[in-house]
């Protein structure tokens, strides 16, 4: 809870600070810079909250043995896991919602100030789609749900919280790099087998809709539905593996 609040406050403060970071504008319009900043905070801090909250919620119960009186009641281990994953996801969605509101406020405030500025200080296109921000936030919730499910799998298996946290972040980094790594590999039987194996790890970069939504180009509903399905497949896969590991775990 403390970490959640700390990161939420950090995110909101960063966004508020972003309003005044005009000198760091790297060629984009200010609004785009603020949106980029907000999306980055949502992704990075959201991932930290996801890994830590999932480990805390699931492995914390095992570590502190509070799971013993719970599982002695008529609760199946699968039900316990689903409850924990839903709890983690609710935490994640709350966190993303806080940052989204902060980002929308920051964009709105700056947009109101823009007409007062001279044309030289503005980029050619300074508009940002508010709907796009909401779409981005919604998609991040699904991306982080995948990460929570993977972290739950390692939490069910782990014998220390450090291991579960480390593996959660490790898979997050690999998931971010997977797409570009696979693209660099050549052709051949060995590479094909490796590419097939990489399917076990979700490509988390596919959820990066930043540029598309910032520019207001819009994302086709079918693409969003595809991303949701992609997230659900990996969530169910790793959730099932976590349930299997937890089922055979001795307490």
């Amino acid at each position, binding site marked *: 809870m403390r970490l959640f609040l700390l990161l939420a406050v950090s995110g909101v403060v960063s966004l508020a600070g972003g309003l005044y970071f005009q000198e760091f504008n790297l060629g984009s319009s200010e609004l785009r810079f603020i949106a980029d900043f907000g999306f980055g905070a949502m992704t990075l801090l959201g991932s930290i909250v996801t890994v830590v909250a999932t480990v805390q919620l699931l492995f914390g119960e095992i570590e*502190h*043995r*509070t799971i*013993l*009186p719970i599982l*002695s*009641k*008529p609760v*199946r281990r699968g039900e316990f896991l689903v409850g924990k994953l839903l709890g983690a996801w609710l935490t994640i969605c709350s966190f993303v919602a806080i940052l989204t509101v902060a980002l929308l406020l920051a964009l709105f405030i700056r947009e109101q100030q823009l007409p007062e500025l001279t044309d030289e200080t503005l980029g050619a296109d300074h508009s940002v789609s508010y709907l796009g921000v909401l779409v981005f936030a919604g998609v991040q919730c699904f991306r982080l749900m995948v990460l929570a499910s993977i972290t739950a799998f390692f939490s069910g298996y782990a014998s220390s919280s450090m291991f579960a946290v480390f593996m959660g972040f490790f898979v997050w980094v690999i998931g971010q790099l997977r797409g570009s790594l696979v693209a660099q590999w050549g052709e051949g039987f060995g590479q094909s087998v490796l590419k097939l194996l990489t399917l076990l790890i979700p490509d988390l970069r596919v959820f990066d809709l930043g540029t598309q939504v910032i520019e207001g180009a819009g994302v086709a509903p079918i693409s969003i539905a595809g991303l949701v399905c992609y997230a659900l497949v990996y969530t169910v896969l790793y959730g099932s593996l976590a349930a299997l590991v937890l089922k055979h775990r001795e*307490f």
Partner: protein
Amino acid sequence: MEKGHYLRAVDKLTLNIPEGSVFGLLGPNGSGKSTTIRMLLGLSEPSSGGIQIFGGSAKDPAVRRRIGYLPDAPYYHKFLTGRELLRFFGRLLGIPKTDLERQSFALLSQFGLADAIDRKLGAYSKGMLQRLGFAQAMLGDPEILILDEPTAGVDPVGASEVGVFVRSLRERGKTVLLCSHLLTQVQGLCDAVGIMNRGRLLAAGSIETLLPGGGNSRLAIDGLTESDLNEIARLAESKGGRAFSIGDDLEDIFRKLVIADDKSGGAP
């Protein structure tokens, strides 16, 4: 498996606990008592052999609904209050809301926690947490109570109260499996005991069966004069025995003093 060596966690235990009895499971640390209890609750699975409770598997939630479990330490969420903890466990048991509120308050009052009902568990003393553990174990009025070290970390007065509570369970026809290190208490409470060591059940049966003379080979005498006591001592010696004063032990004195002080309301 630990550091490349296989550890034996219980071995060839065969145990039969009759319905409506208080059964004491005794044994030194590491003898497999807690592992046995966890297998009974479906928290661990035997690699061979089986466990049946009410003719069903411990893995079956319907069977576990009929079991109350007091863990060997208060493994509860410290950020909850006493009322919230019972509400949480009651919901896991599927107790209807109104019934749950009534039951929770009654149980917390029964175990002397009515004043601390809305206090966070982090502020509870060890004894209070143990009493709260009893309250959560009794939620849903289970038919079987599994009490793992119910007197661990509890002062002698609290231990005595545990004894009273277990007796009341027996009177209500509950089946109790009690795991304890206080052998004198177990002796007075249990209908039958099982003594474990290294995963094997060394002996099991009623106290009368296990102890020569039904556990009454010692005799306490009260209300006689000094000369009468000397005469009895001489008689005992002539019969090849020995008569000596045993008096109260430290536990008895401590318990008597504290109870007397409680009754007097702390007056000097």
